[in-house]
């Protein structure tokens, strides 16, 4: 009697938990879908930005790593203040770089999604300015290596300029002019719109596509470990070989 009652309570607890999880998932999906619809009805979104061919992304001015002839492109939507993005940069990206980018099988394109705090926009403006001088990836690594708490001042204007000054060969006059004038504000806003149109409201998120025409997109959500990326990339490379 006691055992059956206790078991019933336990089963009910698990069921209640399951219901709660399902409800949460449902609400989450509904929320993302609604935001996606809102983003897609935004007139300012340029439909010519689709699909994500590697050449289109580079033409737009997005920073990239790898060979232009790489058959696969990984598009990374990240925020410099997001600790999960730093986790990806420290743990997963070096393996992707070594296995696929250095071997010419994949290219990595960075898209700005500053949504983790008030200071994020400044960090992304500065990073895009360093791209003008071909120093984006050095600045990117420097920021992730020195990442601290969100909006704790580690990427305020003064510190961003200090970080920039640590990059060998970066011409500070040109950088300051670009950064102070917020030259890339619209560019970053467009990246955010693009991310939202894909249903990305958190970071990091990735889209893996065929480089030539941006077809066959596959989404990878979160700072996943290397085997997750490997499974998607290998599948795509296999399909391309057929």
């Amino acid at each position, binding site marked *: 009697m006691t055992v059956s009652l206790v078991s019933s309570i*336990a089963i009910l*607890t698990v069921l209640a938990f399951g219901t709660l999880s399902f409800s949460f998932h449902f609400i989450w999906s509904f929320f993302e879908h609604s935001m996606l619809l809102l983003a897609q009805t935004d007139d300012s979104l340029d439909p010519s930005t689709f699909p994500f061919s590697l050449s289109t992304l580079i033409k737009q001015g997005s920073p990239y790593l790898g060979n232009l002839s790489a058959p696969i492109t990984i598009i990374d939507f990240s925020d410099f203040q997001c600790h999960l993005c730093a986790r990806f940069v420290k743990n997963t990206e070096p393996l992707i770089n070594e296995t696929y980018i250095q071997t010419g099988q994949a290219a990595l394109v960075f898209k700005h999604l500053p949504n983790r*705090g008030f200071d994020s926009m400044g960090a992304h403006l500065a990073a895009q300015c360093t791209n003008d001088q071909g120093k984006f990836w050095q600045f990117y690594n420097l920021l992730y290596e020195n990442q601290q708490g969100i909006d704790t001042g580690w990427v305020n204007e003064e510190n961003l300029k200090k970080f920039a000054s640590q990059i060998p060969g970066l011409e500070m006059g040109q950088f300051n002019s670009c950064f102070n004038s917020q030259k890339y504000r619209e560019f970053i806003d467009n990246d955010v719109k693009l991310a939202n149109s894909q249903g990305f409201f958190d970071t990091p998120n990735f889209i893996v596509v065929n480089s030539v025409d941006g077809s066959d997109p596959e989404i990878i959500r979160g700072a996943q470990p290397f085997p997750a990326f490997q499974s998607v990339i290998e599948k795509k490379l296999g399909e391309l070989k057929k």
Partner: protein
Amino acid sequence: MLLPLSVKVVFSILTYILVATAVAIPFWILFNFFDQLIFFEPIWIFYLPEDAITGFILTTLISILIGMLVSMNIYAVRHFNLKISRRSLFSGSSMGIISSVCSSCSSVGFLLISTFGGIGIIASNLLTNYQTLLRIISIAILIFALYYINKRIIHSCVLVYKDHNMTTDQKNQRNSDF
């Protein structure tokens, strides 16, 4: 091993171990899902990077404590016919569970940002920056709740003399025995 008596009593019964496990495992999965240590797409995978070790230990501890707490509450209700009063509801397992779930709020901070704008950003940042502290507070609350239910179980074991039928001599004899 130095375990409270109530823990030894409750978890000497297999059913309560199973109940605790059945409660702890879903919480453990949920916490690790929010912390991006467990993924279900594109492949099922669990990984533990260096920066996540502290958080993982804390959430594992929280999951175990929640499982124990729910199990011990069920034991108390079943064996001692204890009623769930407003006070016990607030200071017992429900408070522990709520606090633990809140400790994972930082993982869904972007929902706060999107919903509440600037105030949401501040709330989300606080939750993210003080995530470890919040989890430690959750553990403290759960330990308090365990202490509370332990006290209730142990006190419920004390026999109460029904002395209205005793003579004065018998009462004196009983009191001198103590």
